């Protein structure tokens, strides 16, 4: 089945999210849509799937015009979608999840699970997607959960499958497996729309690549196009994909973590007795698949977590158990994982956000009197220094793009004296240009002799920036390796496989 979009336009107020987009996905083709965050990929797919309505334009299936005004219309014409965030009920079994919304019952209104099981087995065999129908979803690894989502789409006879950023949550091995699954599906005649911003994957699996920038189709290219070329089309200018990792001086340990355990409110250990240190002038990356305790470990370093045991030595001084404020002012800069929730206050102005941790000290305040003058003049300086794109420092931070919000966070954290920078997923959801900026700042801090701890799930980022890489798996640090490790070795570690070879 082929899917064609003709002159799809969608505006939100003054913003044109999709500007007369044309796109054709042939039968049995993997069509990658590549674009930065905010380029309009998701809007376009939500239109195709019936979650949004286009202002103008047509959707054609096998050359015939169709009306899609809600997801059920999309399902009826054979379009299925696997969302970035899975739409599964964790405590239900696979079979229960898959029959959800299409429940068939036998006598006495008893759910007919056997039928669902049989259907799942058929699909599993046909497409090589091995899943146990009776497994409870929350016990399954993320990669398998994704398979459940794909089966869900296929069972309702989707002929065009939309995969929205499907590899964001996967380990490298799971990603490879997904790419194989995609090839299998393609060989069975399923068309796939693959939405991503990861160049490597696109080149590995796509038949055709459409690049979207600021709501417009910039070009349709073949997968033989080089990564650098794809990146520059995405961003609109030449991009430096691998920041310089030249030889640099490394000093002694500036932050030492000993036997650190972090527990959740119920007392279950999320981080289990980890040991590591970071030297000044060094980037230590903490890699791992999301949800293996990295977030909690990062938060524990400034005592944001409630139940922490063990020892955190900053420049030889114990800071575990200190208040968050004292931890920060002892010399740790903290870039939180969730910008919107933990990093900025959306309704506050840029100037106000820049003093979130500094408002209590000179020159910003005297006694309890806040000096608006100093706050504003300092904000003007930061905006220039960190290239925060805004009309005025009085604008609410919520009006800024993700990249500029992150710049506000970074500007704030780096504008007091620090010894260590803890950055938790600092480039998540950012566009290529902003990622470049963040990477530059991280390396600049390293070169200025700070210790940097970078928590990241992006392998490319970890490999590009780190001097040493600690891999977390189920709350433990499995190994700390030198950055000359291969992707495959790192991938195995992230999946929990230790071997003597992976060590360094």
């Amino acid at each position, binding site marked *: 089945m082929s899917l064609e979009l003709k002159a799809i336009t969608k505006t939100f107020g003054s913003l044109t999210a999709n500007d007369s987009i044309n796109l054709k996905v042939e039968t049995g083709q993997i069509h990658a849509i590549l674009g930065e965050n905010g380029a309009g990929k998701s809007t376009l797919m939500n239109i195709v799937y019936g979650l949004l309505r286009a202002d103008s334009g047509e959707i054609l299936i096998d050359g015939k015009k169709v009306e899609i005004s809600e997801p059920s219309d999309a399902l009826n014409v054979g379009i299925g979608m696997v969302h970035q965030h899975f739409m599964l009920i964790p405590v239900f079994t696979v079979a229960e999840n898959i029959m959800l919304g299409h429940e068939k019952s036998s006598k006495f209104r008893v759910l007919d699970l056997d039928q669902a099981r049989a259907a799942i087995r058929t699909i599993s065999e046909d497409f090589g997607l091995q899943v146990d129908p009776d497994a409870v979803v929350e016990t399954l690894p993320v990669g398998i959960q994704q398979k459940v989502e794909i089966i869900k789409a296929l069972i309702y006879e989707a002929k065009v499958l939309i995969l929205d950023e499907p590899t964001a949550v996967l380990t490298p091995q799971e990603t490879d497996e997904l790419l194989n699954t995609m090839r299998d599906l393609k060989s069975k005649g399923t068309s796939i729309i693959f939405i991503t911003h990861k160049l490597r994957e696109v080149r590995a699996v796509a038949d055709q690549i459409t690049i979207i920038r600021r709501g417009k189709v910039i070009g349709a290219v073949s997968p033989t196009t080089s990564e650098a070329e794809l990146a520059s089309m995405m961003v609109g200018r030449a991009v430096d994909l691998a920041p310089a990792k030249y030889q640099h001086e490394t000093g002694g340990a500036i932050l030492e973590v000993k036997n650190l355990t972090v527990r959740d409110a119920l007392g279950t250990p999320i981080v289990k007795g980890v040991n590591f240190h970071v030297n000044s002038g060094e980037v230590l990356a903490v890699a791992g698949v999301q949800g293996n305790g990295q977030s909690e470990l990062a938060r524990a370093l400034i005592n*944001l977590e409630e139940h922490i045991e063990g020892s955190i030595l900053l420049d030889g001084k114990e800071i575990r158990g200190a208040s968050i404020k004292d931890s920060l002012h002892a010399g740790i800069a903290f870039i939180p994982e969730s910008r919107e929730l*933990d990093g900025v206050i959306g309704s*506050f102005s840029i100037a106000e956000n820049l003093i979130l941790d500094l408002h209590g000290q000179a020159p910003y305040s005297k006694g309890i*009197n*806040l000096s*608006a003058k100093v706050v504003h003049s300092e904000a003007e300086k930061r905006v220039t220094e960190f290239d925060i794109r805004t009309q005025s420092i009085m604008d609410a931070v919520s009006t800024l793009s993700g990249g500029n919000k992150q710049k506000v966070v970074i500007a704030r954290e780096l504008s007091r004296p620090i010894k260590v920078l803890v950055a938790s997923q600092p480039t998540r959801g950012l566009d290529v240009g902003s990622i470049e900026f963040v990477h530059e700042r991280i390396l600049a801090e390293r070169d200025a002799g700070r210790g940097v701890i970078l928590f990241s799930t992006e392998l490319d980022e970890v490999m590009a920036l780190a001097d040493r890489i600690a891999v977390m798996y189920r709350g433990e640090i499995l190994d700390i390796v030198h950055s000359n490790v291969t992707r495959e070795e790192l991938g195995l570690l992230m999946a929990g496989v230790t071997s003597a070879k992976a060590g360094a």
Partner: protein
Amino acid sequence: MKNLISRIGQSIKLPGLSFLMAFTITGIIIALSDEKVMNKIGSPIEFLKSAGASVGNAYLALFQGSIYDNRLAKSNFIEGFYPFFETIVTATPLILTGLSVALAFKSGLFNIGAQGQFIFGAIGASYVGFHFNLPIGIHIFAAAVAGMFLAAIWGGIVGFLKARTGAHEVILTIMLNYIAGYFILWLLKTKTFLRPGRIDPIAPEVAESARLPLLAGENFRIHAGIFIALAAALFVWWLLTKTTIGYKFRAVGANSQAARTAGISVPFVITATMMICGALAGLGGAVHVLGSEHALNADVAGSLGFDAITVALLGRAQPLGTVFAALLFGALHTGGRMMQSNTGVPLDIVVVTQGLIVLFIAAPVFVRYIFRLKKLNASAALTSKGWNG
């Protein structure tokens, strides 16, 4: 300047339109509940005429009862403002309780407890007022401070419990209101508080030296409390916009997680906010006793603590807005009485109007729909925010 005007325009658009709609609907209710009007339902023109007259008379009475009544201006026109002075007397404690609720909103807290805090403020002021003999000026000050102190503790209990245990402030304040309400009943039966020679729950009158000076002579009740209330509004504005403490309050109110991540102590903010809120509502109680009531009685708080929530919402949790909203409510209350005695429209209709105003403010989408407005930066977030724990 133009910017400022448009900003003010923006911020009063929603309350203004809600106000208009509330009065329209109240007018319809007044007309439909008037027998004289309903008797003419047979002929549409007569019906409309008489409905117009009925509503017009009611609203005229409302105006005369709350702002200016030329019939009262016998010797000079100032006397015609008697109703307006009454409005201010009613509004004064309401401004203070309203500020208490508004400040809590700014810190992301829903202070339902202004009622109980008000009661403790009244108790403290009353006790110092009748029990001690102090020089004029100092006596007022001491009584007001005593009231604020007790109320700050009463509010602080809520803050402390929430900060320590995570208990929800809405539940805590409601329960503490009950306790305060029954505590004052008990207190007024004790030897210390019961006025000698009385058996009904009323305390001795506060000494002359503890009474707030009257502003327009013996014939009018208006007293210096209004200046205290306005000063409090100024204080809240200053606290919120010019100090590090207010900055912390607003940061926690807008996004407590980001505030905490940046090292702001959320427990401190919660406790400090509730203490200051308590002190504000307590000052309301003190001013009420020292200015117009002069003696503590069991019903001293009336519904001042609850109306405060409405006032704060209507004032969009801004100090100046709260002042105007309290004046409006004061006018509705005093004018409503005149309306009742002159036209027979029950005082309760005023409560309907109040309710409608708040209803529309809390449902900005509805107002937007009615008036086909593109965007209203609504205070809906305000209404729902208090419940997020």
